[in-house]
C-alpha cells in the first residue's frame, strides 16, 4: 500500500513539469508554430528560479525569476521566428543550445560548481496541505501536500482548455494556426496572435522549470530538463492539442518515470530504468498512430 501511494505520488510529481510545458506548447500548437524551444525555456526557467531563490532567500523571487527566464526565451523566439521570419526549427534548436550552454556556463561562473548546485539557502516552493482532506489516511496522502505548483498545473489544464475553445482569443488563435492570411484579412494581426501564443508558452514552460528546480527537487543540475520539453512536444502532437488529453498523457508519462525511479531500488541497471518513460512514449506513439490510421479509414468509409 505504502509503495502504491509512493508510486502515485511520484507519478503526479513527474507529470507536472511535462504537463505545464505541454500546456504552454498547446498555445503554439494551435497557432501553428513549431515550438521545439520548450526544452530550453524550461531549462532557463529552472536555472533562474534557483538563482532568484538563492540570492534573495525567497521562493517568491525564485518563482518570478523563473517565469522571467521562460519569458526571456519566448521573447527571443518571437523576435526571430515571428518578426525576422527565421525558420522555427532552427530558432528552436538555437534557443535549446543557448539554454544548455548558457545555464551550464553561468552555473560555473556564478556558483563555481560543476554538474549541480545544491544549497540549503535555496528556498523551495511551499507545499500545500489541503485543509481537512490532509488528515484523511490514504486520500490525504494521495492528494494533499504537494508543492502548490502541482495544483496550479491541474487548474491550468482546465483553464487552457476553456481559453482555447471558449474565448475570443481562442477563436483567433486556432484560426491563425489554420490560415493566418484570413485572420489578417478580418483585421486581426496574426503576428500578434502568434507572439502572444509563444509568450504564453514561455510563461508555462518557465513555470515548469520553476517546479523542476524548486519543487521536484531543490537544486539546479546541468541539463536538468532532461528531454521533458521534447516529451511535452510529443504529447502535444500525439493528443493534437486537447488540454485535457494532455493532462492524461502527462500522467501516463509521469507514471512511467515514477516506475523507473521505483525500479532503481531493484537489480535492474539504472541506465535501463531511466529509459522506461521514453520507451513508454515511443510505444504510445506507435499504438496511437496505428489507431489513428485505422480510425481514419473507418471514418472515410462511413462517409461514402
Amino acid at each position: 500500500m505504502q509503495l502504491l501511494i509512493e508510486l502515485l505520488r511520484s507519478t503526479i510529481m513527474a507529470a507536472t513539469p511535462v504537463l505545464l510545458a505541454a500546456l504552454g506548447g498547446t498555445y503554439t500548437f494551435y497557432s501553428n508554430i513549431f515550438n521545439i524551444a520548450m526544452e530550453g525555456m524550461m531549462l532557463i526557467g529552472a536555472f533562474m528560479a534557483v538563482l532568484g531563490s538563492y540570492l534573495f532567500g525567497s521562493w517568491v523571487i525564485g518563482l518570478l525569476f523563473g517565469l522571467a527566464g521562460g519569458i526571456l526565451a519566448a521573447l527571443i523566439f518571437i523576435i526571430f521566428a515571428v518578426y525576422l521570419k527565421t525558420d522555427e526549427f532552427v530558432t528552436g534548436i538555437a534557443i535549446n543550445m543557448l539554454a544548455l550552454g548558457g545555464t551550464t556556463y553561468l552555473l560555473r561562473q556564478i556558483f563555481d560548481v560543476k554538474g549541480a548546485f545544491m544549497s540549503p539557502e535555496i528556498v523551495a516552493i511551499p507545499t500545500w496541505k489541503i485543509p481537512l482532506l490532509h488528515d484523511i489516511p490514504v486520500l490525504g496522502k494521495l492528494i494533499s501536500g504537494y508543492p502548490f505548483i502541482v495544483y496550479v498545473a491541474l487548474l491550468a489544464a482546465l483553464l487552457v482548455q476553456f481559453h482555447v475553445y471558449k474565448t475570443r482569443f481562442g477563436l483567433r488563435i486556432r484560426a491563425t494556426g489554420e490560415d493566418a492570411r484570413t485572420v489578417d484579412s478580418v483585421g486581426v494581426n496574426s503576428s500578434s496572435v502568434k507572439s502572444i501564443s509563444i509568450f504564453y508558452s514561455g510563461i508555462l514552460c518557465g513555470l515548469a522549470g520553476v517546479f523542476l528546480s524548486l519543487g521536484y527537487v531543490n537544486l539546479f543540475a546541468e541539463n536538468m530538463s532532461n528531454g521533458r520539453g521534447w516529451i511535452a512536444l510529443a504529447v502535444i502532437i500525439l493528443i493534437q492539442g486537447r488540454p485535457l488529453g494532455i493532462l492524461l498523457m502527462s500522467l501516463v508519462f509521469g507514471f512511467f518515470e515514477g516506475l523507473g525511479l521505483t525500479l532503481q531500488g531493484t537489480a535492474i541497471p539504472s541506465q535501463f530504468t531511466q529509459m522506461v518513460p521514453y520507451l513508454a512514449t515511443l510505444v504510445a506513439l506507435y499504438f496511437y498512430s496505428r489507431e489513428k490510421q485505422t480510425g481514419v479509414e473507418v471514418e472515410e468509409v462511413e462517409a461514402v
Partner: protein
Amino acid sequence: MVNAKLNRPDIELIKISSLVKIYPPATLAVDQVDLTIKEGEIHSIIGENGAGKSTLMKALYGLIPYNSGKIYLRGKEINFGSPKEAVRAGIGMVHQEFMLIPSYTVLENVILGVEPTGYFGVLNKRKARERVEKLVEEYNLNLNLNARIEDISVAARQKVEILKLLYKDVDILILDEPTAVLTPQEIEELFSRLKRLKAMEKTIIFISHKLDEVLELSDTITVMRKGKKVTTMVNENLTKSELARAMVGREVVFTVKKDEARPGDEVLRINNLTYTDRYKQERLKGINFNIRKGEIVGLAGVEGNGQFELVNCIMGLIDDYQGEILINGVRIDNLSILERRKLMAYLPQDRKDTGSAQDLSLISNSIMTHHRINPGLTGRWEALLDPGASRELTGQIIDKFNVLIPGIDAPISSLSGGNQQKVIVGREFMLNTDFVLLDQPTRGLDVGSIEFIQKEIIRKRDSGVGILLISADLDELFNLSDRLLIIYQGRIVAEVDPAEVDKEEVGEYMLGAKGVAS
C-alpha cells in the same frame, strides 16, 4: 434586364478623382481615373485582365496605396490605410480568393475578428447567432450556420463572405469577379441576391469581364482599358458588341468560327475506367468514351466531379486505376508518364505550377518535354542538349503563337498570363501528337488571348488531331466542342450535341438534377 430607375435622387456616394497608381518600377496600372458611384446602384466595372479595375478597387479599399488623386466618400475625403478602416467606413470587398477558415463553422467565420464577448473575453455565441440568423433571414441567404466551411459548396462560401460584410454593417459591397467560380444556376441565384441587396439600399460595385452578366445586372457600367477609364454608361439599350468594342478597342469575335468537324479514325478510347482513391472514395465510376481524330470533345462538369482524376489517369499521374485507356488502338495503361507523353500533348489547368517553371527562362520552359522526346534537341550525346536547337524551337513557338516577350532569356514569370499560356500551348502543340488533352486552356486570360488560343485549338482540330477539352467555362465548351460530355460525381451522365442543347440544360446535368439514374 434590370433597368429599374433608382427611386432616390442621385446621390454621389463615392467619387474618385484623377487617381493614379504606379506599380514600381514603372507600370502605370491606373491612369488618371475619375469615377462616380451613386448610392443604391449596381455599378459594374469591366475591362480585360490588367485593365486596372481590380487595382482601382484595391486602392479604394485600402489594400494598396495610390500615388496621386483623391477619393471622396459622401463628400468627405478618405484614404484608408487598411481594409479594416474601409470596413469601418462601410465599404467591404469580396475577393476572388475566399478568406475563410475551412474547419470553422459559418457562424465562427462570420464573427471572427468582431466577436461579441462577455467577461474575460468569453465568446457570447448566442448573441452572435441571434444577429447572424436575423441577417441570413433578412437577405434570404439560406445558410446553415453550424455547417463547416470545408463541407459547403463554393457558392455557399461566397454567401458567407457576403454575410461577413453584412455582419459588419457594410453598405457598399465590392465583388471582384464573383461569378468566375459559379455554375449558371448559381450565377442566377447570386444575381437575384445582389438585386435583393440593392433593394435593401446597399450599393454594389461589380467587377467582371463577362459582358452578358454585366448587361443583365448593372444600372451603370464603367469600362476600363489599359489603366484608363474609357467610358461610364447607363445600362439602357446597350449591346454586347458596343461594350466589347469599348473594352478591347476593336471588334471582337465572340464565337470563333469553325467548320463542321470531319472526324476520322478513333484516337482515344476509354473503357470502363474506374478509380478509387486512397480514402476509399470512388472518384471515377465506369467511364466510357472515345475521341476521333479531327474532333473536339468537351467535358463539362462542376469542379471536383472527377475531371481532375480523369486527367491524371490519362496522363499516368494516377496509375492504380481499373479499366483501359487506348491511344490509336494501343493500350497505354502500363506505360510510364514519359512514354505516354510521346503520344499526347497536355495542357495542365494550373499554369504556374504544373504548366511551367516560373523562375526558369523562356527557353527552358519552351523545350520542356521536347527535351526528352525530341531527338532534334540533342546533339551527339543524348544527355546533352543542343543550345542552338533549343533556341530555334523557342523562336518558332514565339513566332507561331504570337508571344510578346521581353527577351528570350527572360524568366517566363516576366510574361503576362496570356503570353505564358501561349508559350505552353505552343510547346504542347509543337509536339505534333494525334491526341491533345486541354485542361482549362483559357482560364483567367483576357478576351484577346482567349480568342487567339481558341482559334489555335480549332486549327489544331482541323489538322486532324483529336482533342479532349475540359473547361469550367460553358461558353467555351459550346463554342469549341463538337460533342459535349457531362460528368457528375465520377460518371459521364450525358453526351449532347452543343448545337442542339442550351446551357441551362447542361447546367442541370452538371448539378445532377438530370440524367442520374437513382
